[in-house]
């Protein structure tokens, strides 16, 4: 019997990545079944999944999901448009970088949630505040990584271009920016995750009427636990998919990375 299983295991290689997830669901179902935790606090996986499917199809979960995506992507787009060119500029002048290094490090270490009140003062409690604060958090990460990539670009390719007669601007554009791309992508990937985190928290606490953050906190307040788990799952899936998307983009645009 065990031998038989072992023979078949390689054929089920696709199963491996989901084994952990299956185990988690199994433990969850078991805990729920024997009522180790109050079922009101921890509904069964089936109930939660049903809430997820229902919310996505008939209910408003789909709407909240979309709102969060739009906010995250708006914040990310703003952050990218501002931070990438700034990062290239900072990275290409070590003097400029050194003069703002402390500022970047300081604000990078400041929890973005601590900035909420400040952004509320400037942007009011509408969409802008949420997007602005998320863009701020993401931009710092993108800026830092882009500048770092440009600064640490290997010398040799730049010298090769220089000896061919390329001007400094040309070298920056044709060589250094490309050379920094792998690091920039790390920044973009971390940046979009950061934007999502901040958007969800902002939706919870900066007067919001929709979005996953708002939905999670509402469900928690009325003890609608299946819906809360469904919303948490939606947020997790969103983060995971965005990460996956960026990994795909990265292998496509930085095809030489690590080679």
């Amino acid at each position, binding site marked *: 019997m065990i031998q038989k299983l072992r023979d078949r295991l390689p054929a089920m290689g696709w199963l491996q990545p989901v084994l952990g997830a299956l185990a988690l669901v199994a433990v969850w179902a078991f805990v729920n079944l024997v009522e180790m935790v109050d079922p009101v606090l921890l509904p069964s996986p089936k109930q939660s999944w049903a809430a997820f499917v229902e919310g996505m199809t008939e209910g408003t979960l789909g709407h909240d999901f979309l709102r969060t995506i739009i906010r995250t992507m708006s914040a990310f787009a703003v952050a990218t448009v501002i931070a990438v060119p700034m990062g290239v500029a900072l990275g290409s002048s070590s003097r400029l970088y050194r003069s703002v290094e402390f500022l970047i490090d300081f604000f990078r270490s400041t929890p973005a949630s601590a900035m909420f009140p400040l952004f509320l003062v400037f942007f009011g409690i509408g969409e802008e505040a949420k997007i602005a604060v998320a863009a701020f958090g993401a931009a710092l990460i993108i800026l830092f990584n882009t500048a770092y990539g440009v600064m640490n670009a*290997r010398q*040799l*390719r730049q010298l*090769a271009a*220089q*000896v*061919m*007669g390329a001007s400094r601007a040309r070298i920056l554009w044709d060589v250094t920016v490309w050379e920094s791309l792998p690091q920039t992508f790390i920044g973009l990937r971390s940046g979009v995750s950061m934007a999502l985190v901040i958007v969800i928290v902002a939706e919870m606490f900066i007067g919001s009427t929709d979005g996953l953050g708002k939905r999670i906190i509402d469900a928690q307040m009325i003890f609608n636990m299946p819906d809360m788990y469904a919303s948490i799952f939606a947020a997790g899936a969103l983060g995971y998919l965005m990460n996956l998307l960026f990994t795909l983009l990265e292998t496509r645009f930085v*095809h*030489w990375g690590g080679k």
Partner: protein
Amino acid sequence: MSPDDSALRLVSAGNPAEAGDHADTGDHAERFRWFAPGTHITIRGLTKTFGDTVLYEDFDLDLPRGKVVSIFGPNGCGKSTLINMISGIMDYDAGTILFDGKTARETKIGYVFQNYREAGFPWLRAIDNIRYPLKFLRLTKAEQDARIEKLLASFNVSIDLNRYPYELSGGQQQLVSIMRALVIDPEVLFLDEPFSALDYEMTLFLRDKLQAVLTEMQVTSLLVSHDLDEAVELADEVLLLTRKPTSVAARIPFDAPRPRNAETTVTPEFIDVKTRSLEIFQREVRKP
């Protein structure tokens, strides 16, 4: 531009006050005003220090037009530093380096680095790597294509140039680097240990290719090599350097007919040049 013009330019390009000083001291003035016909690159009073170590001090050198000069010397004596300063990718503390009176910036230069992996542009296909330096020459698209055609014909290699550099073998990548350096029809070609990261078979193949193309193009070339056989086989002249502070230990001409091949390396002339080079090299290495 006649040699006399370049000599004048050589004086004017230097620090005027310094040139004035030299004028007072007779033979210095001579040194600044004259170089032999057929000279392409003139180096005068070159000085380079790294921290406390003086690598070059008041270093003079004339390099002939259209010839291949192999640079050979002890480890760390400053071979790479020298060709980097000449090619204009490294600053120096004092001195003048001119190509027929022009600066490096005004001269078409090809440079083949030892580390082909870090010198090629991995975001461009091999063919676009080769084509890249042409964009600094103000050529029409048709002229560019003609250049590429001609280059590919003279190398006559069977690499799929639509691949990215990292998809090619080391030897193929270095071949692409060599083609990238030569596509502009450079006035001067620099090669810093171009084959030392390659296996022996590939080295022999590339050496032959390079030699054939250089013979055809007659481009002034400076080759740094750790392999004395290679240095001599490719050279019209072997330039031996001392340990630092670096100066010229000897210059040994080698004018065996081209194309040269394995048979060249067993001729008495080859063995003689190699033996003399080795003697001087060993003398330099043993010096305290």
